[in-house]
């Protein structure tokens, strides 16, 4: 890889931030997640926190932004802002829609919902991410994932 040298070859503990802006085209989700996960991997993130929690959680947010926020209009854009720190990564996904209040989405794991084809996106985001904020910024969602699994939540 043709990237600036990091000196000792190990990820620096210094944080970094970067942003992506994508047309609303679902085919971009795979390469975008591939890139983002690669950045986290370079930064020492690994295991299922990276391959499952991060990839699926952020994927769901991108898909919802493109499908619902931007009504699949490729001229409308999704903006992804990443703050990559040693202990945690925060990802803000912003669309051009009116925002929404996820409120009480039906629990997709209830027996009566189990055979529904949809309705698992927000649920998975909440299950897989350590912090989820749908409110702070209107038409956007802020996801936070810690490098290490936090102590079990009292639930």
């Amino acid at each position, binding site marked *: 890889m043709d990237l600036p040298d990091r000196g000792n070859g190990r990820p620096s503990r210094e944080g970094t931030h970067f942003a992506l802006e994508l047309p609303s085209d679902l085919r971009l989700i795979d390469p975008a997640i591939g890139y983002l996960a690669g950045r986290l991997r370079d930064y020492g993130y690994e295991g299922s926190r990276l391959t499952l929690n991060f990839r699926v959680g952020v994927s769901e947010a991108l*898909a919802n932004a493109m499908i619902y926020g931007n009504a699949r209009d490729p001229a409308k854009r999704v903006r992804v802002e990443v703050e990559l720190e040693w202990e945690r990564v925060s990802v803000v996904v912003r669309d051009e829609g009116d925002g929404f209040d996820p409120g009480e989405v039906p629990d997709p794991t209830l027996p009566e919902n*189990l055979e529904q084809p949809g309705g698992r996106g927000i*649920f998975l985001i909440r299950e897989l991410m350590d912090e989820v904020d749908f409110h702070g910024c209107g038409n956007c969602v802020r996801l936070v994932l810690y490098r290490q699994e936090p102590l079990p939540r009292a639930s």
Partner: protein
Amino acid sequence: MSFRTSKQNGVVVVDVDGQLIVGNRQELKQKVLDELEGGERKFLIDFTNTGYIDSSGLGVLVSLSKKIREQGGELRLANLNEDLRTLFELTKLDTLFNIADSRDAALSAF
């Protein structure tokens, strides 16, 4: 990401290479529905080479499983890695699907 279909002992086996997500799930759906329409009734989806699955990918599996059952057929899944098992457990879809540890185990149980 791509899907490879083959036929083994009367079972349509689909290998999912890469992701099964919102951007490509229709492809899988169409492939399986075409085979169902063509008279096939036994289906196995093998996830050995699968990266990750999102909620839309899970949704396609749920609706395919239902459509196949309605035609008197059966859909089985095999070779889920640890991440995929966790995903099926979180969503309780492990209770809905017949999940085998290996392709052979799935095939011989049809």
